[in-house]
């Protein structure tokens, strides 16, 4: 099926069917959901790459679609993440309080995603965004914390509202709600206003500093199969708005001649950098594996913003590639954590250990995902980081450089934390009976592993597609052949790196295998300075992993949380003040206001 409209209607219908099926049998309903999403993915992949989707609208009133490379790129990534995650549903849903509605809302939000990326109308865009927000908002409280939904919704809605104000300014200026005509008509002060508003929206959705507070709360507390969607897919909506603002609007502000970059873009890049640094520092400190990954999403959001604020093809290529790479990596990592959480019932790293011995495949999935996340070859994350570094260095952005390098090295630290504390280390007694995730859950795991490697070894095809987007946005694409990527200051051959890595590992393996076989000993049989330690927990180093480093900034680490708590408290106090001023039990207060207003008016006009 190649019609966007029909796909959306199909998803709505499928949602209803899934609701009914889930009501009778959770497993059945979830399987149906998998097939529904798969159908959408296949249709999208089958027709979308060639821009062959049918965008005519016959049934839905007031909605119009158009096909762009940009929209399709986002849509296919997000639908893919949805598809991967849906494989997890059969095993998780039965625990949830309102499991019937889970699949319904899941599919509805996917319908929203399709609409949002295919529409060419601002009001439709807003409509679909809001749809996504509220459908997903109801999924979150099915997890651990009920308050998480509020925080997620609050920030998302704030972002949407900022965007909507921007949309209306655009409408006021241009008289049209068409995205492309509208943005093209902006100029001068209006453009700056809309730019700022859209950037706020992008930051809120992307969970970037300073609008990031919701990210760990929502990701950390969402249902386990939903966290990958949040991190891998939904925050990318922010990137989409970011692209609209940074590239499509790109207001004519002053220029930093040193970097040949508009001030607006530079400010965004700096904020993105702060996002990287804060995300990294907070992730290093975090104990909950899911929250840790959430902070890492924040930091990666920063990379995306930095990439899109450097106005040239190579940076855009990096940004777009990073969106893909991070979606795959974070989905993989979150899903691995989800599998562990299903088996053990916790995501706190200090309570876990040695999961590798029972869940080796999950471990591998996590390993590959984090290698990509840390930007290490031969995984996808390296390609995008390499491209972004090229652009940053080429522009000579020192302070942004500090942030991107810090984030990149810092990511080694935080991604290693779950690896060491959760998967490796001593095998804790309470998890000795844990089993590997069931086969259905391993399918997406394997697919994601494969794709993480594929994106890191053969990025040529994808980058060629990204070039289409860049050209569509009005910039020149990057030079890329099947195996080589040509950056501004260097050539990269990811396939060669992959090959050489294989050769190196082969040599190492040979050395290993010809030498004498090792004697297998128990994990507890370790060097303890000849002390007898008989409790795994005592030999497991998981609490406050980076304690010496954390100590350096522990005082500063909750500033933003404090700020937002204080903000909420201030609003509440304002409300109390309002009640005191206007809602008094004393009638004379009302009379006072009436008299005051009349006097004010008469004083100004008549007297």
């Amino acid at each position, binding site marked *: 099926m190649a019609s966007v409209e029909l796909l959306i209607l199909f998803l709505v219908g499928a949602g209803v069917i899934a609701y009914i099926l889930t009501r009778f049998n959770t497993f059945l309903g979830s399987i149906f959901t998998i097939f529904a999403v798969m159908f959408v993915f296949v249709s999208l992949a089958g027709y979308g790459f060639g821009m062959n989707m049918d965008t005519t609208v016959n049934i839905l*009133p*007031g909605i119009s679609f158009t096909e762009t490379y940009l929209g399709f790129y986002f849509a296919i990534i997000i639908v893919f993440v949805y598809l991967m995650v849906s494989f997890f549903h059969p095993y998780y849903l039965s625990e949830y*309080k*309102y499991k019937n509605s889970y699949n319904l809302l899941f599919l509805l939000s996917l319908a929203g995603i399709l609409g949002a990326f295919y529409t060419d109308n601002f*009001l439709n865009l*807003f*409509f*679909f965004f*809001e*749809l996504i*927000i*509220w459908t997903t*908002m109801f999924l979150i*409280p099915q997890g651990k914390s*009920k*308050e998480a*939904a*509020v925080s997620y*919704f*609050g920030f998302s*809605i*704030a972002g949407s*509202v900022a965007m*909507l*104000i921007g949309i*209306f*300014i655009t*409408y*006021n200026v241009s008289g049209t709600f068409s995205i492309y005509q509208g943005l093209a008509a902006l100029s001068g002060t209006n453009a700056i206003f809309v730019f700022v508003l859209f950037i706020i929206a992008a930051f809120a959705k992307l969970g970037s500093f300073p609008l990031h507070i919701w990210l760990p709360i929502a990701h950390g507390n969402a249902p386990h199969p939903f966290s990958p969607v949040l991190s891998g897919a939904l925050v990318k909506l922010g990137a989409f708005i970011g692209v609209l603002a940074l590239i499509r609007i790109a207001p004519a502000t002053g220029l930093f001649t040193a970097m040949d970059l508009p001030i607006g873009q530079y400010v965004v890049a700096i904020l993105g950098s702060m996002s990287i640094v804060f995300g990294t520092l907070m992730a290093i400190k975090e104990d909950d594996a899911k929250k840790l990954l959430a902070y890492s999403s924040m930091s990666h959001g920063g990379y995306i913003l930095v990439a899109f604020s450097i106005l040239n093809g190579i940076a855009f290529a990096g940004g777009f590639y990073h969106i893909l790479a991070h979606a795959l990596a974070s989905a993989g990592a979150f899903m691995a954590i989800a599998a562990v959480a299903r088996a053990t019932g916790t995501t706190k790293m200090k309570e876990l250990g040695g999961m590798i011995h029972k869940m080796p495949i999950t471990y591998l999935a996590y390993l590959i995902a984090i290698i990509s996340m840390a930007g290490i070859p031969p995984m996808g994350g390296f390609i995008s980081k390499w491209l972004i570094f090229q652009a940053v260095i080429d522009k000579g952005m020192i302070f942004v450089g500090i942030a991107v390098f810090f984030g990149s090295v810092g990511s080694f630290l935080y991604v290693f934390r779950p690896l060491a504390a959760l998967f490796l280390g001593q095998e804790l007694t309470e998890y000795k009976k844990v089993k590997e995730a069931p086969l259905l859950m391993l399918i997406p795991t394997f697919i994601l592993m494969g794709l993480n490697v594929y994106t890191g070894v053969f990025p040529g095809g994808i980058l060629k597609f990204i070039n289409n987007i860049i050209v569509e946005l009005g910039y020149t694409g990057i030079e890329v052949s099947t195996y080589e990527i040509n950056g501004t200051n260097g050539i990269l051959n990811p396939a060669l790196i992959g090959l050489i890595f294989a050769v190196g590992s082969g040599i190492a393996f040979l050395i290993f295998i010809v030498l004498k076989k090792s004697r297998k000993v128990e994990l507890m049989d370790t060097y303890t300075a000849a002390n007898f330690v008989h409790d795994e927990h005592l030999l497991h180093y998981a609490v406050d992993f980076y304690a010496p480093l954390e100590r350096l900034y522990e005082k500063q680490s909750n500033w933003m949380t404090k700020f937002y708590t204080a903000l909420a408290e201030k*609003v*509440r*106090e*304002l*409300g*109390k003040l*309002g*009640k005191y*001023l*206007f*809602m*008094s*039990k*004393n*009638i004379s*207060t*009302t*009379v006072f*206001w*009436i008299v005051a*207003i*009349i006097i*004010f*008016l*008469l004083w*100004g*006009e*008549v007297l």
Partner: protein
Amino acid sequence: MNAVLLIVIPLLAAFISIVSKKIAPYLLLVVGLFNIVLLFFLENGLVFIGGFDVAMNSDLLGISLLLDTYARMALWLINGLILVIFCLNFKSYKAFSSILLLAMAGLNGLLLTNDLFNFFVFLEISGIAAYLITSANKKPVSTFRYLVIGAIGSSLFLFGVVVLYAMYGTLNMIVMIQAIQASGNYAEVILPFTLMFIGLGVEAKLLPFNAWVKGVLGHSNTLTGPMIAGVYAAAMSFVLGRFITNLFVFEGSLLIVVTVLLALGILAGDVMAFSSTKTREILLFSSIAQASIVALLFVNGVIIWAVYLIIANALSKTVMFLVINKATKDVGSDESEALRGLFVNNKLVGLTFTLVTLSVMGLPLLAGFVIKLNFLTQLAGIGQIVLIAIILVASVIEGIYFVRLIVKLWYPGESEISVKYNYSFKAVFIVIALALLVFGTYSTPLTKLDNTIDTVMEVVNNG
């Protein structure tokens, strides 16, 4: 058939019902149905009962009614809602049927009248009915406060009317509009308009004249909550809309003051709701904000979407107050903490409540979204970006507290609570939620009407 029947028959029924208490409830049902049916047969136009003649130029005192699409929509809503609310409370609040008849007469009069003095009379009639209705709260002090503030408001209104009469020598609204247009002196009408605006503002829950609301709605039950927050609020908004669009001339500092007051009302209402933990307070403060938005829309000439907003709000608030007040009655507390897990065993009610709330918040697939988007578009069309920003910022706060409330109600706390809703409640909830859902996804019928549903200016221009 004459529009005056809409007023006279309820009034007559009210008198009869005092004589025979037993038939009163059935009388109300019959009269309500009669009114709704009658509305189908009535034709648009002016009705003169005495005093004024058709040309409206000789006698300056009299009674005149105006029925147009605007009034017709309002009347349907009001009569229908009263009927529904009464049906739902048929058992528990039978004794209030004559009062409701009185309220019906008064509100119908308010919406139909074309005469300022009669308007005052109906204001008083409906006001008295409202005070009596709120006595069902069993909070006499709050009711008394409502009464006093209401009296202040209506006397201010009357004072404004007196001044206008003194200036233009007429009480017929249409004639007066013509006269004001002819004189074109805005400065001299500023005093009466201010007074009238304040007088209406008291009833329409506009900040800062609405101190009574907290006492009245904060202790409301299944009758008073929907009646005051749904029916009365809608009726007063309609009336206010008519006055603002046609009679009042807001210019200069008056416009600024009014706009600031309304904007403040939106923000303050939502902020106050944000700081509340009691469910009923949340609802009532949110309706303050909504009332301010409606008034703001009328000030900016966005009539049709304001009308839809009034209707949607009246329906939504009816559902919300019914759900919450019933639960409060059964649980014995309206703290949102105490109501945790209300919907665990009432999934259907929960679903409808959620849909209705989403509509109030203006989220897609529901009527509230269509309405919000359309009125914002019209505001943007006239360049009111600041107002849009204010409305939207307030909607963020609104979203947060509503989501907080919904999540609380869906997920249980330590103790389970059991609240039973009977089928008539559920039926009403479903119908309203479905209506919001249908108009939210299929909005074509809504766009058929435009701002010309209010025909007063037409009448004025055509003489």
